[in-house]
């Protein structure tokens, strides 16, 4: 029998009852919970939108400040980042470290572009000449739109930012020389999170932005 001390650092993946890694189940449970977080925020927005309409009223038309071209662009960028994320997961499963690194970098850059667009949008809205949208006012009138808009899209932006930092962590880790296919499952969890955040935006974009033009 070899020296028992060497056993202490061996880590075999523990056998689980379902065969699914525990971290993945944790991530799915978290995403289920996160659905309810966004569900609550989106319902709040929809309820207040119906109660205090911004469309059809000449004094408070939110379309005055929306820049739908910019938001469509950033939506496209965010959705495209999901492709990079999927490719990164695929690359690490195959053990292709170089490709993983590039795909992680692509996801980070696209996520950052989305965040930059959001920062630009927020500053633009707050300072928009004559049509300032703040947390409590729109065009100098008390209004709820600013409250629900900033808190909802801001919460989503925070999720994206957390995702970007998480991916940055993996990117840094990939340079330590320790990254291997053993990390594939962890990166896959990160990917689950990233795709989920994208899917949420697929709901937010029509509900918050496009609907103002439709109804």
């Amino acid at each position: 029998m070899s020296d028992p001390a060497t056993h202490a650092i061996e880590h075999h993946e523990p056998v689980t009852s379902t065969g699914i890694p525990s971290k993945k189940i944790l991530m799915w449970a978290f995403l289920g919970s996160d659905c309810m977080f966004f569900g609550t925020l989106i319902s709040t927005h929809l309820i207040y939108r119906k109660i205090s309409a911004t469309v059809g009223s000449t004094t408070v038309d939110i379309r005055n400040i929306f820049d739908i071209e910019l938001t469509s662009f950033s939506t496209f960028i965010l959705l495209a980042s999901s492709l990079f994320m999927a490719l990164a997961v695929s690359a690490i499963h195959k053990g292709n470290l170089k490709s993983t690194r590039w795909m992680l970098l692509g996801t980070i850059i696209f996520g950052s572009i989305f965040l930059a667009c959001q920062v630009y949008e927020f500053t633009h809205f707050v300072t928009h000449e004559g049509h300032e949208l703040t947390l409590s006012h729109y065009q100098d009138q008390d209004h709820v739109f600013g409250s629900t808009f900033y808190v909802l899209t801001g919460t989503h932006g925070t999720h994206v930012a957390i995702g970007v930092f998480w991916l940055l962590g993996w990117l840094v880790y990939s340079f330590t020389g320790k990254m291997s296919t053993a990390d594939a499952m962890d990166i896959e969890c990160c990917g689950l999170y990233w795709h989920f955040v994208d899917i949420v935006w697929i709901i937010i974009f029509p509900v918050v932005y496009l609907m103002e033009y439709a109804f």
Partner: protein
Amino acid sequence: MATESVKYVAPETETQLQNQVFPRPGQHTTGIIDWLTTIDHKKIGLMYGLAALFFLLVGGLEALLIRSQLWTHNLDVLNNRQYNQMFTMHGTTMVFLVIMPLSAAFFNFVMPLQIGARDVAFPRMNTLSLWCFIAGGITLNLSWFFTGGSPAIGWFGYAPLTDNRFAEVMNDMGPDFWVFSLQILGIASLLASFNFITTIINMRAPGMTMMRLPVFTWMTLVVSFLIILAFPAITIALAELMFDRTYGTNFYDFLEGGKPHLWQHLFWIFGHPEVYILILPAMGIVSEVIPTFSRKPLFGYGLIVFSGIIIGFMGFAVWSHHMFTTGMGIVATSAFSILTMLIAIPTGVKIFNWIGTMWGGRIRFETPMLFALGFITMFMIGGFTGIMHSSVPIDAQHQDSYFVVAHFHYVLIGGALFGLFSGFYFWLPKMTGRLMNEKIGKVVFTLMFIGFNVTFFPMHYLGMIGQPRRTHTYNLGHGFEAWNQIATVGAFILGIGIAIGVYQFVSSFFDKKLKPAGKNPWDARTLEWTLSSPVKEYNFARMPIIKSRDQAWENNYGPKEKHSEKEPVDDHGVHMPDRSWCPLVTGAGLLTLILGMLFHATKDLETGVVLERDYMIPIIGGIVFVIGIIMWAIEGPGGYHLFPKEDEE
């Protein structure tokens, strides 16, 4: 034979130091550092339990002050604001700092043992959820010492009570403390629930199929799902309230377009599942205690499990019965009324199953069984009044009267707390290794049962003759005095009973004169009773292979083919994860962050206008939090190996 068992006893290996980036307490850590850095689910469960018992005494003291104020008409033991603060803190403390963590204590201690696991799936996350709970308890109770004192908004925090323009005290900080402490308590509950779900789904011993899980474990799973789906609603509602109070958004500000009604919906979308979060663990405990003391298998196991799931599912569809008088319209109120009546069916199914279990059994009336029987009877009374409330016209009469107070204390004390006390008397011998004094246990039960009924039964009548709840006093001439005095006397009897009970629990850890419990003092049925008391840190020396639902019982009395087997010894020994400082660092960062947020704004003392914002302390807290998480990721689970002798479990 002797040489064969020696073969497996290899020298214990110390934690591998060369692999570590940060100092980490080693395998043989003892004392305070062990308790601060432990990742052992049993120690975490104990800490949960002890902290919750402390808060039980605090919340009980608040209740006794309330009862003293109501002793007779126009008393001034508490003024109206202090009275409001008392019932707010009493409610918040009892719900979030007593019943939920007491349930979490049992989830932590018992559930991994029942499914044959060595720990929960994520031991360090489990520790973090404990520290978040402690941080939340500290934050809530710190509110007494700052501007405005503790919150005076009710445990439900209805808007616009939370709006400072209507507060009695300028720059009232109470609601802020309430908001932030509930947020961090929410984090604690969410983390713990993710952990329990993963553990139950993924860490079962071989042969432990889902339909062999003990009912208590099943209820842990259902409650965990309720928590992860219900807490987001209040987290967002509280976040919106925080933005309202801190940054001037208009979510609940009716002067500027917000709707206070929305708060009620969001609160009760969380609040009603919360009711089942409080009661289902107690139902799980009772489902373990009654078969044991009736010496019969649980009657209708499948139905009990299934009705527990149905209760959890339907719990999300009845929230608006808390809001019948807000004017939601006929369709909405009727729908919620019907669903509320329907939810009585699975609850009734459970009660009949417990009765069926006892039927024809050889019942032993020991303390856990007494509390379980108290649970069934008292919970039934609470359930009956609950069905009365589900009828909209009756509810309109009961609304905000003492009848409602009687109803929910019957389900939360007579139900949840009796169930949890039953659990304490049942499982404490497993935790301490000592049997408790049966006589004192029976005295505690008698005092609690009598005190509880004397306190809360008169409240049904007080409610019917019109005493409003949440009102700090009453005038002479309504006929309220006599029943209130009886209730106050009962409250003190109940308080004495609980205090003796808590003393008995805590002292049983230290009292060396108590008899040793042995492996299975109650002749109980589930897997945790095959282990020594107190349980060893590795739980199972060899993993059991489960053959039947009541494994401990089958091992003693069942046919040979139903006895559990053991997995062969692993040459690598039992892998134990290392203790870690990271959860404590992360939790401390979070506490600093919220305390910093509470005090970040300098306000004008006369107008309440924010003069200056200083984010220094929240940023420091945030940095500590992030550093904690990064350290957490880098250090990994770590670990060392133990080589227990074959029969040491």
